[in-house]
């Protein structure tokens, strides 16, 4: 087999695996979310479908697929139909530049579990995830519903607020590493085990990025776009069935991407951790961050849009810039 053929087949197989695995994970993500939140509220969560309710995901899937496909009157049908696809597909496109595991050998070829090791990796991931916000924006504007348009407006508010923090907070570690490729970022932390993790040298950037990540993935405390208590379901008010499901899959895929990003950039990525092999180490980290997302959701109240802007522009941005300045001075000195 020539290298080109192998490369083409390898890429196709990798893309298929990523889409399949993360669609399934998104489904099970909802199961874990319900279970964890239920336990934190002294409930059982899903119990009846399958042992301990594990097959609830299947039941939900059947329901989503067989539901009537409604396009509301006076909406803009084309955009209404495209919007969920934007969210879901950009979520998966973003994963193209994320290295999930260390590379391994197969049939004499070295396979690295990343679809495209582009040299602007992290920029691409953040960019693709940011494009995903066109989904809520367009979907909300096209649905001809007041709640939806409020949700769409909040999308813009949220986007304008957190994207600054994401960029500025990641800039500091990137300055230290000198590369945007996530593989380089990972290899930078090879030395020294836990002590070599970037979280110790960039704790402020870590916290800022975590906060921005909650906004980026549209989770509590920043779930302004679809906060039920205020705007019914925000941009998703008119969506049902599989179109709504696609928004959902996109959201959960983003959640996993962000968890991988945090683990790669700040927590030593897929480097071996003592006796734990790298692949398992990163899975543990991602699982931990996924749990943190659920944990925060069941603990913290959510904030108003103006509070989000206040937080991002007046508090976090100055901190990010100061952090950036200090990092720059330390690097130069």
């Amino acid at each position, binding site marked *: 087999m020539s290298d080109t053929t192998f490369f083409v087949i390898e890429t196709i197989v990798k893309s298929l695996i990523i889409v399949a695995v993360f669609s399934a994970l998104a489904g099970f993500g909802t199961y874990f979310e319900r279970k*964890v939140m239920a*336990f*934190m*509220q*002294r*409930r*059982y969560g899903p*119990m009846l479908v399958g042992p301990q309710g594990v097959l609830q995901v299947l039941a939900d899937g059947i329901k989503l697929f067989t539901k009537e496909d409604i396009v509301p009157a006076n909406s803009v049908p084309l955009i209404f139909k495209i919007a969920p696809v934007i969210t879901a597909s950009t979520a998966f496109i973003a994963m193209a530049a994320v290295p999930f595991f260390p590379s391994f050998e197969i049939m004499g070829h070295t396979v690295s579990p990343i679809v495209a090791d582009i040299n602007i990796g992290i920029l691409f991931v953040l960019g693709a995830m940011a494009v995903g916000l066109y989904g809520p924006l367009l979907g909300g504007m096209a649905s001809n519903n007041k709640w939806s348009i409020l949700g769409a407006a909040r999308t813009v508010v949220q986007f304008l607020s957190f994207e600054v923090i994401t960029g500025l907070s990641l800039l500091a570690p990137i300055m230290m590493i000198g590369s945007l490729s996530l593989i380089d970022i990972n290899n930078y932390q090879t030395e020294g085990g836990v002590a070599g993790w970037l979280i110790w040298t960039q704790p402020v950037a870590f916290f800022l990025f975590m906060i921005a990540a909650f906004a980026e993935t549209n989770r509590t405390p920043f779930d302004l776009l679809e906060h039920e208590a205020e705007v019914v379901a925000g941009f998703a008010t008119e969506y049902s069935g599989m179109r709504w499901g696609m928004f959902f899959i996109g959201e959960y895929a983003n959640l996993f991407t962000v968890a991988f990003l945090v683990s790669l950039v700040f927590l030593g990525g897929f480097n071996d951790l003592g006796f734990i092999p790298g692949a398992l180490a990163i899975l543990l980290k991602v699982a931990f961050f996924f749990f943190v997302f659920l*944990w*925060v959701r*069941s*603990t*913290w109240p959510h904030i108003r849009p103006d509070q989000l802007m206040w937080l991002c522009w007046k508090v976090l941005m100055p901190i990010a810039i100061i952090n950036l300045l200090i990092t720059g001075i330390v690097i130069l000195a």
Partner: protein
Amino acid sequence: MAKQEYKHIEIADYPKTGFARFIQVMRRSLRVELFKGMGITFGVMIRTLFRGEMHTMQYPNEKLPVSARYRAIHKLLRFMESESERCIGCGLCEKICISKCIRMDTKLDENSRKVVPEYTINFGRCIFCGYCAEVCPELAIVHGDRYENVSEQRAHFSLKDDMLTPLDRLKEQKEFPGFGAVNPEADKMIKKTPLAY
């Protein structure tokens, strides 16, 4: 009565000046109150999973105990020792029933004792007033704990066999504490209303 523990909560005034507000934000952030909250939810999760603090009743499989004062579907009890029926066929319940829904047959058996071959209640008419249970001198007819009632038609009769405790389940029969008895759990369930409300 359970011991009452009231906590007085100090609520400070809202900060007025910008600087006071800044101080409040700093104090709240530095005391990491948000993370304390996360500690609480995590503790709840651990206690729910491992210490049996789950609040959910899985209803059709588990049921909350009903109070002895609750007037659900009737039961006819037996004596625990002799296993014979408590009902002596005096007919008081039939007489007092204001909706006239109890119907019974009595006869003398070979020992010249009065027995009750038939005893029916029409639950389509019963208003669950509890007079029958109150009047019964033998604590024979009592209200049980079956509160899920469904019927296909207006008249719905419960026959004697449906209500009488079966012999093989006599062990599970609970002594009726008397009509209007308080719930044995009552002390635990009552909270004193603070007069300072």
